[in-house]
């Protein structure tokens, strides 16, 4: 291209430059119009201009919920009680951590971010300097926060000695056990199993006598494909948690001396057709469907799954009844469930927040005991009533106005919340019964606390934990299904150690030693 072209391009470029500027302001104009008409976030900038302006509007990023936070009744309550207008956005349900990373790095000015408790993610943000150090702020503005949180929670969340997040702790200890068809037991004149031997017997009877009349489809105990570690049974072999104390050291299951016995027992259940033959291919939903349609006599589930199961089962097999199996005693008399410890959600203040102090004040106001109680379970006589010292929900208003309440919390009143929280479980009596059996009626020694739940951030452990658990899970599946022989255990252990098990183990036990002191 020759001279004239150059001329054109110069003209074009200079025209471009001029109009880019014009267009940029123009673009902003149109963009604002668009978002303005759809009540876009308009927080911040004006408010920060005047530092002592009365309570700015805050912006929060929260986990996905089925309903809009901003119009949910709890939002109104909090606005009245804290005096802050809060505008909340949600993370997606699917692959939320990626979107959270994206938002954190986009510098979007959220004042509070609440996500699922992912210690690796949290400590990564903290170390990269993306979060505000909450210690001084809480000291100055957070008397309620200090009162609500237990010291061990605060300790567990410290990264390099500083606190960057406020947790909502888990509200119950025991998740799951074996759910068994009690009408099948009655039909065969069997009692609820209390030991692993009795369980074998019950399942054998289920198989041979087919009390459900399922013929070929009959399944004594169904589990899902990734559930090779069966809650309750694993406790009978002294390994309720992923890491258990063996002679003063925390040891992962695959290195536990009882591991062989556990695999031998479950392997024999499978070999004899007492565990679902096709369990390896079972998805969560497949296993549930087998139980819900009355084909399976027992299933390993979380108590929160019970309403869906019981509803379907009531339609397909109206005569069906079921209950959780109590902690089974193993050959050495050991028993127990893994008891949750640790956090459900974490709330933190990103560095990009325009109002970190106000955010802490908001959290503090939300943790004022009466406000917190109202947020959690509502008003006595309207949302709940007290029956025998327990909070009973009044339906349907409780579900309508407080069902999502837990999502609004940034920190909980750690002493009282577990009690308030049980009102939520009482919404469904069948579920509550199962929950109550596992969580309230079991003796303390049947609940073996997952010590690592409250451990502080440990780099190696956080990095490797999930992968190592998957490794153990997959290997155990193969052992149970007979695809691998237990003779190869030593080789596997070596592989496990090399894949990060050794580093994790060292780190975990260094911490454990300090705990024992």
């Amino acid at each position, binding site marked *: 291209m020759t*001279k*004239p072209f150059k001329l054109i391009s110069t003209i074009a470029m200079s*025209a471009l430059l001029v*109009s880019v500027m014009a*267009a940029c302001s123009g673009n902003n104009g149109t963009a604002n119009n668009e978002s303005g008409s759809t009540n876009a976030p308009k927080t911040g900038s004006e408010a920060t201009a005047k530092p002592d302006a009365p309570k700015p509007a805050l912006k929060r990023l929260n986990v996905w919920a089925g309903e809009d936070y901003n119009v949910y009744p709890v939002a109104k309550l909090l606005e009245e009680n804290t005096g802050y207008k809060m505008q909340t956005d949600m993370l997606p349900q699917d692959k939320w951590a*990626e979107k959270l*990373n994206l938002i954190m790095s986009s510098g979007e000015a959220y004042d509070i971010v609440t996500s699922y408790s992912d210690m690796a993610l949290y400590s990564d943000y903290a170390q990269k300097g993306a979060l505000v150090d909450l210690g001084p702020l809480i000291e100055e503005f957070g008397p309620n926060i200090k009162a609500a949180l237990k010291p061990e929670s605060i300790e567990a969340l410290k990264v390099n000695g500083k606190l960057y997040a406020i947790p909502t702790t888990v509200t119950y200890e025991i998740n799951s056990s074996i759910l068994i068809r009690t009408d099948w037991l009655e039909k065969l004149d069997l009692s609820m199993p209390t030991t692993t031997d009795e369980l074998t017997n019950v399942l054998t009877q289920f198989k041979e006598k087919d009390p459900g009349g399922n013929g070929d489809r009959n399944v004594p105990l169904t589990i899902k494909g990734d559930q090779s570690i069966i809650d309750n049974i694993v406790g009978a072999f002294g390994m309720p948690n992923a890491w258990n104390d063996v002679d003063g050291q925390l040891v992962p299951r695959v290195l536990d001396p009882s591991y062989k016995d556990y695999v031998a027992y479950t392997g024999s259940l499978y070999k004899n057709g007492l565990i679902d033959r096709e369990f390896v291919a079972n*998805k969560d*939903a*497949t296993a549930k469907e087998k139980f819900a349609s009355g084909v399976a006599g027992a299933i390993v589930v979380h108590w929160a799954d019970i309403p869906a199961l019981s509803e379907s089962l009531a339609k397909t097999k109206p005569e069906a009844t079921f209950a959780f199996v109590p902690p089974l005693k193993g050959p050495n008399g050991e028993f127990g469930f893994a008891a949750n410890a640790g956090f459900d959600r974490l709330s933190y203040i990103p560095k990009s927040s325009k109002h970190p102090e106000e955010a802490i004040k908001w959290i503090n106001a939300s943790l004022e005991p009466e406000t917190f109680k109202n947020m959690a379970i509502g008003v006595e006589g309207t949302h709940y009533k007290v029956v025998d010292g327990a909070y009973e929900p009044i339906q349907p208003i409780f579900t309508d106005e407080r069902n999502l309440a837990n999502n609004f919390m940034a920190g909980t009143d750690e002493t009282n919340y577990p009690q308030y929280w049980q009102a939520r479980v009482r919404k469904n009596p069948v579920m509550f019964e199962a929950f109550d059996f596992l969580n309230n009626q079991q003796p303390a020694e049947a609940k073996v606390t997952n010590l690592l739940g409250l451990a502080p951030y440990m780099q190696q452990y956080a990095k490797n934990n999930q992968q190592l658990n998957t490794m153990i899970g997959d290997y155990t599946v193969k052992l149970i299904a007979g695809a691998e022989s237990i003779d190869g255990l030593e080789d596997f252990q070596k592989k496990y150690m090399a894949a990060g098990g050794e580093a994790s183990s060292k780190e975990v036990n260094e911490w454990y030693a300090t705990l024992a002191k």
Partner: protein
Amino acid sequence: MSKPRGGEGVSLGTGRRRLKLIRGNMDMYMLLIPGLIFLFLFKYAPMYGIIIAFQDFNIFGGISGSEWVGMAQFERLLQSDEFMQVLTNTLLISLYKITILFPIPIVIALMLNEVRRMFFKRTIQTIIYLPHFLSWVIISGLFINILSPSGGIVNEIIRSFGGEPISFFTSNSLFRSLVVFTAGWKEMGWNAIVFIAALAGIEQEQYEAAAIDGAGRIRQMWSISLPGMLPTIVLMFILRIGSLLEAGTEQILTMYNPLVYETGDVIGTFVYRMGLGQQDYSFSTAVGLFNSAVGFLLIIIGNMLSRKFIGRSIW
């Protein structure tokens, strides 16, 4: 086909003549301004951003505040097992899509061409064009639904034949097939349109002459319809090859999950996950640049081939 262009004489003209043309048509050049702003701002400015592939980009420092690392990101890319896996996935899915899905619209066009009942023909066309207009989110939603291991109709059918339910969306051995199948489901009808048009362009007399010579209809399809479509087929094929490295990013983003990263993660999804999800901007820009560069080469080669074989260039 195109009207004679008045500007043919320009090459003979003098600079003054061109200047006059420009001056006389200043309003035309003004019209271009919005388009040019768009072009430079949203198409060329991001190309400048590619230089972060040669940096260790720090989002807070920006391009000027980031450290130069030269080709380090590309070395890392070539040594990364994960990238090799992703490249393999991309090529496999793309090749499956081409070998399996490319011929189907041609067959559909040939078949529709044989149908004489117009009502039937139009009904089928209406139905099979429809999925093209649905978003991948909806289509993934539909298939997640019907393939669900709990109550999905496909698994109910499998079960009624005594089979075991299959969890399609979490199975590494099935995921690629699923991607290919759903892509076919969405676009097979739509992609047939160009071939149907090519067939419509074939003169009816050719068929009549063949019929008189005693050629059956299969014979006619083979020796008249197919050759008549050939230029279109070649053109479409070359175009398709040009997008070999685009295995369906949006489709896979709406369908995949961590259980099938092993077989389903393709370059586009990988760039998103690594670059934006995990803030590895420079590395994923390097991956993106690799992708663009290979794609560019493929298109150039394709265009050359097109010119050589059917005498038409793509643009």
